[in-house]
């Protein structure tokens, strides 16, 4: 137990110092602004959820939305994202952190090492979602009849709920380090790319068929049933959602069975992760070390092999691309995010079922699903940016001084990073937006318009990512996964949520104007105004954030 506390103490002290070290008025002001901003977002989430639930509860005669449905959807998506974060965090904590070598050389048991690092992974993956979940749960608790068991029940439920992805991430990180060695890495990446292309083509074939034939392959119930998959009895998120839902609005489901299942699953996954670590850690860590050594050799050899003349911006983009593919934690997240994107796109064809509704209902459902789809796409884009774009400046790490001493302005570095990330993310986002619009609305001119607008939305999200990433830059990290879980990252996510909401309203309005039956000059003018306002908002936000990034205190301190 003492060893466990000794291992956790430096992390806790580092966190405390991060909060209390700011002695200057500027730092205190920043900290206060962050707290106020977070509270505003939390209150907005609380009020928004409460309003939404009250609207739904007003029409129990026509439709009933049990708390388990939104909770199930929210918790299942969150579990996928936390598992991904846990994988990156576990890769860093167990294999890539600087202090692992020192800990392994000390007389520390494997159990203490595992417990301390798992505890750290658990804290890092859960604190941020907890900030988002808390106001939603509080809103649900106040809307439905608040039971005295809700708060202890929610805490008892969320502990194993977060422990499952933390342990799963640890287990996957160990297996990943064992399987992917230097010799097979390139082959594995090629196989993954080939499989991704194959799956992409398959998904594309299905989508093209769905778009051209508009065959709904069933009807609306298929769509609803596929949404209800979040409530499948085999999903841990569904057990957690059912427990919370039962405390709020009892429907006769057994809480004790689900709680037992949740805890036994969490303990079993943790046990397996510990077993795997106990047996495989030495070999996996040795591979991680040899990987680092090999990378250093490659880096030394590289300048002699690559003598092409590149422009300043291209050289910076090229450098970032190489860094991304070499960084195990970053490239793993990229692969998983690509998989998630593919899964979402492949399920979009289900939305063709909206055509089977009556004419009046179709328009309403089209609007509702279009807004949901736009929000999902925008949040997916921001999720990619949180992990990859926001961290791009900080990833320079302790070698940032090399860039500082080069004849390149910080402004140019930030602009190059923006350009490097903007192009691929804008293309992905435009594909997602366009496919969704074509499936939901089915008109090519609308698809083209929303596809173009998606480039502006991505401009805002990526610009904000690079700008805030530079402003909250932290070059003293041990492993890259720490960056996506920092306070700055939370600020970015919260600000990004606001930007997404700011875009969703005009997008919804634009759709409403577009599907209006009577075309007129005034309507065309209104379409132009709304579309231009979307473009304007994002361009201004991106420019403001990029300028903020150029005044980054962390980067300027290094000067």
């Amino acid at each position, binding site marked *: 137990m003492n060893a466990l506390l000794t291992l956790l103490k430096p992390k806790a002290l580092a966190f405390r110092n991060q909060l209390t070290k700011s002695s200057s008025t500027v730092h205190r002001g920043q900290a206060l602004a962050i707290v106020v901003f977070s509270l505003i977002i939390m209150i907005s989430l609380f009020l928004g959820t409460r309003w939404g639930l009250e609207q739904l509860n007003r029409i129990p005669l026509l439709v009933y939305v049990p708390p388990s449905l939104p909770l199930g959807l929210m918790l299942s998506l969150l579990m996928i994202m936390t598992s991904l974060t846990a994988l990156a965090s576990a890769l860093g904590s167990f294999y890539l952190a600087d202090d692992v070598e020192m800990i392994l050389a000390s007389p520390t048991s494997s159990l203490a090492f595992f417990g301390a690092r798992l505890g750290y992974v658990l804290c890092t993956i859960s604190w941020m979602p907890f900030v988002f979940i808390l106001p939603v749960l509080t809103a649900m608790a106040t809307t439905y009849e608040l039971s005295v068991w809700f708060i202890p029940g929610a805490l008892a439920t969320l502990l194993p709920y977060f422990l499952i992805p933390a342990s799963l991430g640890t287990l996957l990180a160990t297996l990943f380090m064992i399987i992917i060695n230097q010799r097979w890495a390139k082959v594995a990446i090629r196989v993954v790319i080939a499989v991704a292309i194959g799956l992409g083509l398959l998904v594309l074939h299905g989508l093209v068929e769905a778009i051209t034939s508009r065959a709904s392959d069933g009807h609306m119930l298929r769509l609803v049933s596929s949404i209800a998959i979040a409530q499948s*009895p085999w999903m841990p998120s569904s057990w957690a959602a059912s427990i919370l839902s039962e405390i709020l609005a009892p429907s006769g489901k057994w809480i004790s069975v*689900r709680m*037992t299942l949740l805890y*036994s699953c969490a303990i079993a996954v943790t*046990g397996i992760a510990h077993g795997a670590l106990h047996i495989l850690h030495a070999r996996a860590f040795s591979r991680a070390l040899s990987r680092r050594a090999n990378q250093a050799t490659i880096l030394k050899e590289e300048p002699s092999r690559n003598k092409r003349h590149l422009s300043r911006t291209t050289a910076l983009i090229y450098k970032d691309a190489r860094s991304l593919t070499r960084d195990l934690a970053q490239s793993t997240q990229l692969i998983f995010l690509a998989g998630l994107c593919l899964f979402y796109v492949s399920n979009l064809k289900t939305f063709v079922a909206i055509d089977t509704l009556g004419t009046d209902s179709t328009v309403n459902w089209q609007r509702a699903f279009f807004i949901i789809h736009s929000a999902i796409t925008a949040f997916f884009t921001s999720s990619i940016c949180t992990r990859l774009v926001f961290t791009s400046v900080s990833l320079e790490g302790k070698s940032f001084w090399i860039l500082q001493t080069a004849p390149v302005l910080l402004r140019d570095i930030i602009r190059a990073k923006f350009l490097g990330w903007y192009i691929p993310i804008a293309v992905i986002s435009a594909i997602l937006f366009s496919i969704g619009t074509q499936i939901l609305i089915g008109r090519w001119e609308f698809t083209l318009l929303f596809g173009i607008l998606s480039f502006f939305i991505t401009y805002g999200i990526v610009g904000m990512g690079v700008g805030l990433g530079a402003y909250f830059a932290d070059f003293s990290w041990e492993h890259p996964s720490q960056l996506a879980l920092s306070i700055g990252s939370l600020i970015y996510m919260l600000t990004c949520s606001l930007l997404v909401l700011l875009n969703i309203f005009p997008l919804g309005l634009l759709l409403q104007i577009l599907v209006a039956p009577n075309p007129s000059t005034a309507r065309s003018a209104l379409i132009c105004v709304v579309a231009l306002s979307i473009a304007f908002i994002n361009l201004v936000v991106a420019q403001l954030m990029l300028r903020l990034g150029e005044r980054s205190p962390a980067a300027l301190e290094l000067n």
Partner: protein
Amino acid sequence: MNWSTLPLLVSASITLVSIGVGAVAYNALEHEETARVISLGPVATKPIRYAIVASQEPDRCVGSFTTSIESGSGQTTINLEGWLLVEIARHIAPVRLEASMVFNALGQLSVSLVRTNYRNESLRLGSTGVNPMNLQVYRGDGAHSPLLRQSVPGPIELRVRDGEYELHVPLLTAFRGPHPLSSHTSLVSLSVGPSSTEASCSIESARPFDLEPLIHVATSLAHNMKGMVPGS
């Protein structure tokens, strides 16, 4: 014994126990989930005819019904029409049944009407609302005042899984402890299967089904339900 492997052995034991407990809990969960699900057969646009047969004599039917499912305008409607040849107090006559259930866009039962007819007596059962569902039972075709009013927890949901329709009825799991229906299902001893031809199951060739024991059970169940259903 090598002490360095002790933590591994302990965690392996805890893992195995957890997997065991989890398996038992999952089994209970699955039992709870299946208890609330009624399978309605494959998704098809054409009406499907079913034969009701007594388990002891599977070659002779006791009843038949036809279901049709219509979708459109954000609603799904299930229509059911059928008969069951019954024997009550030594009288043999068919009980005719007509039902129509309307589900909203989320697949939740919003309105339903069931009409049964036995000899000269008829009963109408209607429901409105999603959760709770307000049930009303009327005796006779022209009756305006209901025989019974009851609020029951909903929603009853229609879902599509693996190409088959399923009806999720929460009321079936609302009962705690031993399932009151399960202890009496042996009394029904009927099974339902698709019927290929009209001739294979007709009133003329059907064998009557003794309904007396079931009426007895239903009466006692209705009595018990009053204390179990919230709001009753």
